[in-house]
């Protein structure tokens, strides 16, 4: 969906720059991060719909970054991009809660379709969460105090 906010995380600056341009041409709002640390910083500051995460990075690698992202408790969906050699790691990432994985090199169309899938899933998750919260508030209005400050903080 056009206008979705994408975060590209890859240590290859040329790749992120090119990808960023390609995705912008296709109507996405794109942010890039050169490392796992950068990505976490950005995620703490702003809301992102889909994160495209490279697995093999110097410093904090893809799996570590994914763990950190999970800790933030976001609805953002993570799409793993792998050099294929680390398919074990890709599967592990999926096990940790990543949406799916893609092998490099990949066609832009392929990536776009996966991003769309991730975006939809994020929508579903948000919807589900929202219904659950409403349900809770209906059951016990005082729960709203527990729920909203947290929501505020994330928002």
């Amino acid at each position, binding site marked *: 969906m056009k206008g979705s906010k994408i975060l590209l995380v890859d240590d290859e600056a040329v790749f992120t720059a*090119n990808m960023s341009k*390609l995705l912008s041409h296709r109507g996405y709002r794109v942010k890039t991060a050169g490392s796992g640390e950068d990505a976490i910083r950005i995620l703490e500051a702003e809301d992102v719909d889909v994160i495209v995460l490279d697995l093999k990075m110097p410093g904090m690698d893809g799996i570590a970054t994914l763990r950190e992202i999970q800790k933030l408790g976001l609805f953002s969906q993570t799409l793993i991009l792998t*050099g*294929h*050699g680390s*398919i074990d790691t890709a*599967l592990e990432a999926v096990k940790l809660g990543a949406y799916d994985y893609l092998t*490099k*090199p990949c066609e832009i169309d392929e990536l776009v379709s996966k991003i769309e899938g991730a975006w939809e899933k994020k929508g579903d998750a948000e919807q589900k969460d929202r219904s659950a919260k409403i349900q809770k508030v209906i059951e016990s209005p005082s729960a709203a105090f527990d729920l909203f400050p947290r929501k505020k903080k994330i928002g």
Partner: protein
Amino acid sequence: MNNRITLNGTADAQGVDTLRKTHHVNLFRRFILLTVVCSLLPLLAVGWWTYLHYAGFAHTRMIEGFETQLEHHRRVIELFLKEKSAQLHLIAHTHTRAELVNGSTLNDVFDLINREYWTIKDLGVIDARGNHLAYVGPYDLMDKNYAQTFWFTPTMEKGLYISDMFMGFRKVPHFIIAVTRTEGNEKWILRATIDTEAFRSLVENVKIGKTGEVYLLNRQGIYQTSPRFSGKIMSKAGYPVGPIHDGIRIIEGHREGRNRIPRQIVCQTWLAQPRWLLVVRQDFTEALEAVNHANRATLIFLVLSAMMILIVAGFITRHMITIIKKRDAESDQLNQQLIQTSKLASIGELSAGVAHEINNPLAIILTEKQLIQDLAAVDPVTLPELQAQLKDSTQQIDIQVQRCKRITENLLRFSRRTHSLIEPVDVNQFLREVVDLMEREARSGGVRFLTDLKNDLPVILSDPSQLQQVFLNLITNAIDAHDQKGLGTIRIHTRSGGEPGIEVVIADTGIGISSENLNKIFDPFFTTKPVGKGTGLGLSICYSIVRQLGGRITVLSEPGKGSEFTLFLPLRPPREFMDQMAETEPLLERKVAA
């Protein structure tokens, strides 16, 4: 020329072979030596011990035998002499001289003595002056005077005298027994000549074996009886008799002065009265014949046993060496497989890294191409040549990136640990599907499939997707092998393996594999296909998959005629493989769920 390898044959195999051969020969020698030392030596020791023991025993027995015999003869001779002496004594003391001299009393006595058997030749009565008073016997001796004879004085002194053999008046060897009696103041002598024949037969008729003899010697070493071989009565013996000794003396060896005769055993004893030496003598070899016979038997037995041991040892050793050779060959093959496996493993690791590193730049190239395409779409290039070139270039970039991707994918598949499923596979059914899949491609290359699938094959536990890859690779290679031939067949044959499992033979009629290439076909990146056509990973992937599934892959090829790949697949994959599967399985389920 028919080349066969099971795996990577090494160049220095010949050197190893020679080394092995010398090793085996040495081993053979050592085994034989050990067997000989361990079995022949004890055997010989036992044989030697038995020989010594038995020889000693037999010798003692023989000596005892001699002693008994000697003792017996002595007793017989002494008894004879004693009896004769006693008879004379009795006659002398029961008759007076007058009685014996007058009338026929002496004649009667003579007849009485000789009544039982002839032992006394003549009988005479002699007075103290040596005159013959009376005589009975064949000779005319009445007028003889015996006062000067050698026996007269000792007889007069001792009362009883037994002479040595002597010739006397009658010139015939004989000996006498004389006793005295004192009547008033007058001494007289009763003298008897012992029948020489009767006495000699006592001694000379004794026969001991072929070489044994019994004889008597007096103190001067003169034969008192005729020995069987050594001499004649009254002649002198060839050796000194030595001093008188008590009891029995045994002498073994060559008699002095007579070197030429065989070794002898001599048993001798001195008689009490007269002082004669009784000798029993026999050749040593004859006396010990029983021992020698036993020894010969023992020797034959020993030689036979030794030969048996040697033959059996030879057979056993040969058998063992054969087993060792087989084991060595097996271990060689195993070592080669190990080398191949570890080589593949290290190449696998390397190729995974390389593939990953190449994939990143490829991804960038792809994004660059996409960018150019995007731009061209937004702002169409007006210059037609540039537009054409741009289209061409981006297309070519795509093609080349795809080619690279295929290489890296193959590399990764080669190195990747398996993540597939183990399930029952009907190999025949499976092969039919694969053949169906490949039929179109084969037909376009002029190649026909011949299938010969045995029906009684067991269902094996294996990984269908990996097996499919193996069969596809092998069949693709088989089809490609006909590129230069145009026509051909691929025979696919299944059968039960020698050990529990299945054998699949994929034989083609293609160009075959040269012997120098045969060693390399399973090596990664080795290919005979034109550049860009093959990655050189197909067979090494096949190899690593088959190894992982616990099977074997062997190749038989004749250049120009074709190649034959034989796959052995076990009934179930090895345990390590199953364990590995168990580890990765939950992950796969999760992936499916996602």
